[in-house]
């Protein structure tokens, strides 16, 4: 973050990470420590501005004295802890978790996952052709964004972003339970009948592309979506006085989507409907 809170200096916690003495500020997670030390730990449900729900379990590490593996993203470093991030045990769990995920949902638009599947030698096909999958049809019920829950890994990020951590609109929640659990609005209605205010903050945090801009969804369907041809320009929203930072994603001289930098002290990644979706006027060239 660029906003540096000047608070009471934090004490340092000393612990052992992969055999090396490590010091991190009090309150840091094991994942923070790993990142500071340059150790790569895969993560899916962790997000930079939300409290991790630690639901995906790909980031698990071994903590000495602990019966089970621990999620690096939410386990706080404690003095004297002995942590190992890359053991046969952690690799096994990560491999199986990746297999379970990839065999049940469509991870084709989830960044980095293909690399981890290779790295951990996961074989999602081994559960056989009849393995249950989500296989949901994309829900296209409005012009702004699309919900394709066949790609949803239930990381709860969109729920937290819509609820008490960002937006305070509480338009979406998890409904049902077990394998049948799904993100849904009240009564599982179309989005247009729900409390959604189309801020798109859920789209901002979704790690899998289960929530995406209608523009992106349509371009992918047409085969014209090409991130290598896109440029990103960060500017200031012109609609009102809040002054949110917008990042315009431009392909072939057209804005294709709008995000907001998570390290912006004004928005922390949040926008409203105007800043996020109201860009058409910029490209009405008469």
């Amino acid at each position: 973050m660029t906003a540096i809170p000047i608070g009471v200096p934090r004490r340092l916690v000393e612990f052992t990470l992969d055999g090396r003495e490590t010091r991190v500020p009090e309150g840091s997670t094991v994942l923070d420590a790993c990142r500071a030390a340059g150790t790569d730990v895969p993560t899916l449900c962790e997000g930079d501005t939300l409290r991790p729900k630690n639901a995906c379990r790909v980031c698990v590490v071994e903590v000495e004295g602990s019966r089970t593996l621990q999620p690096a993203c939410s386990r706080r470093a404690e003095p004297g802890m002995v942590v190992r991030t890359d053991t046969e045990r952690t690799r096994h769990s990560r491999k199986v978790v990746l297999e379970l995920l990839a065999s049940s949902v469509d991870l084709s638009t989830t960044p980095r996952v293909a690399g981890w599947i290779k790295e951990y030698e996961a074989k999602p096909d081994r559960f056989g052709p009849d393995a249950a999958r989500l296989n949901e049809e994309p829900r296209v019920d409005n012009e702004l964004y699309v919900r394709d829950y066949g790609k949803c890994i239930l990381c709860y990020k969109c729920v937290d972003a819509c609820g008490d951590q960002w937006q305070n609109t509480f338009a979406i929640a998890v409904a049902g339970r077990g394998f049948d659990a799904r993100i849904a609005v009240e009564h599982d209605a179309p989005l247009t009948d729900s409390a959604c205010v189309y801020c798109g903050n859920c789209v901002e945090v979704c790690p899998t592309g289960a929530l995406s801009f209608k523009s992106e969804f349509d371009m992918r369907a047409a085969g014209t979506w090409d991130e290598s041809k896109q440029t990103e320009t960060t500017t200031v929203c012109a609609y009102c006085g809040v002054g949110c930072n917008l990042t315009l994603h431009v392909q072939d001289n057209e804005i294709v989507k709008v995000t907001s930098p998570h390290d912006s002290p004004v928005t922390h990644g949040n926008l409203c409907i105007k800043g996020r979706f109201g860009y058409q006027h910029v490209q009405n060239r008469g």
Partner: protein
Amino acid sequence: MDLHFGDSKPTDEERAAVDALLGPAESSWEGADRSDADLRWARGGRAARDRRDLLLPGLHALNDRVGWISEGALDYLCRRLTVPPAEAYGVATFYAMFSVRPRPATVLHVCTDLACTAAGAGELCAGIEARLGPGSGVGVERGPCLGLCERAPAALAIRAGDPVRTAVSAPATVEAAVAAATAPDAAPGEPPAAAAVPQAGQEGLVLLRRVGVVDPASLDDYRAHGGYTALRRAFELGPAGVIREVTDSGLVGRGGAAFPTGRKWQATASHPDRPHYLVCNADESEPGTFKDRVLMEGDPFALVEAITIASYAISAQRAFVYIRGEYPRAVDRMRHAVDQARARGLLGGDILGQGYSLDIEIRRGAGAYICGEETALFNSIEGYRGEPRSKPPFPVDQGLFGRPTVENNVETLVNVLPILTLGAPAYAATGTAGSTGPKLFCVSGSVARPGVYEVPFGATLGEVLEQAGVRPRLRAVLLGGAAGGFVRPDELDLPLTFEGTREAGTTLGSGVVLAFDDTVPLPRLLLRIAEFFREESCGQCVPCRVGTVRQEEALRRIAGRTGAGAADDIALLREVGRAMRDASICGLGQTAWNAVESAIDRLGAYE
């Protein structure tokens, strides 16, 4: 928070059901007709949000009265409590006993779990469905253990209305179950709780000594049989003294985790945050377990007294009893006991003139095994989905409503009474050094006298089965419930203690002893266990949400196969099982594979 409610309106009946719980709505902001005053101010806000814990009782009120929860009804309840409808929908769809689609007013829950399956639940269900046929006005739902395993197979009929009516049929025949569903008011009454205690009335019982001896509805009778002497003793000792006795007694939790009770109490008692809460976990949903039900039905005042003592020790002034929704009689008996105790000054402002005040609230679960996990239970009481929280923080630091909380199950709490009346040393003289006191076991399956048995810790598995009259040709015993493990008939000298079972690589779990003779098809049983965990997973974490599905699929593939034909899938089961045990958030996912693994390793299930 900027809440949005749809246009659907509640029916008069739905509105009445909610208003009976919450009182009439005061303004149009809460769903009443608009008045002039409503244009000037809005009530609600924090005061209404603080009642979020009434969401589950509100859903029950609707489900009890109407049989299902409509959009209009849910929206009205949400307005009254300032709960976002999407969240309330997520809560309503979490619980198996609620429906958000129209369904018949009468639902017949037929148990298809382990003891009942062994007793022919499959044929029973088919028979009931054939007899009722379409258009009978009864919805038949096959489901998990109803906690009536000693009378398997079991069925529970619930008819929505004002008041809601219930009837139990166990052991159930097609005729009896259909009769209970079609005329619940005319159904024959349940046998007394003591019928589930073959030892009832015997000399020397400690935990069960009043079951079948006292009238469970009479406070006077309870006092005449030694009731409330333990509480008097507690007041003499003071909170610190009570905790010392409990610590010295060596009591550990009976719910499966076996954590020292005194230590838990001490940690909460000394926590600077206030208020403190006590939660009694009476959500006994482990298949094969019914001891807590029998205690609540047969000796409810004992639990009220024990909760009072525990709350006093940790200085809690509000205690909750969370009883599983499938136990209507236990809920009634406990409500009655709490009301009686309150009316007689044994709960409320100034208990026994000691200046200590406590109130106990009874909350009903709604069909979710996972709510027996302590942090899931907190979420459920608070009006959220019953999803386990990750630990740390532990409940002694941040439990119910984020406050220091002690959670104990029914059996654990009831042990506190003899600890105080006998004194810690005398109590600890029973059992072994590592497992002190008496222990309850729920024996069912292939035995002549199924029921709850009380034995001192250290009795062997064979001795307990002997008492229950084990039938010949025993094939396997499931110890500890679906999350426990199987043992072989040649392991009957296993001592039933925490240390003894641990040494033998198995667990006491919740005290289930489920015996199967060789007529029970093992693969079918294992499939049922896998199905149970798949159905009961909360769905929060990937290893459990998807792992339980993959395990059930593998078991379906190999049902009927053995040897090399099953080897691939067994390897797969092991790999998935290992990751579930290592990487799941809570005990459900971590133990879901135990029983099947033990059947493969100890019983040679697919050899």
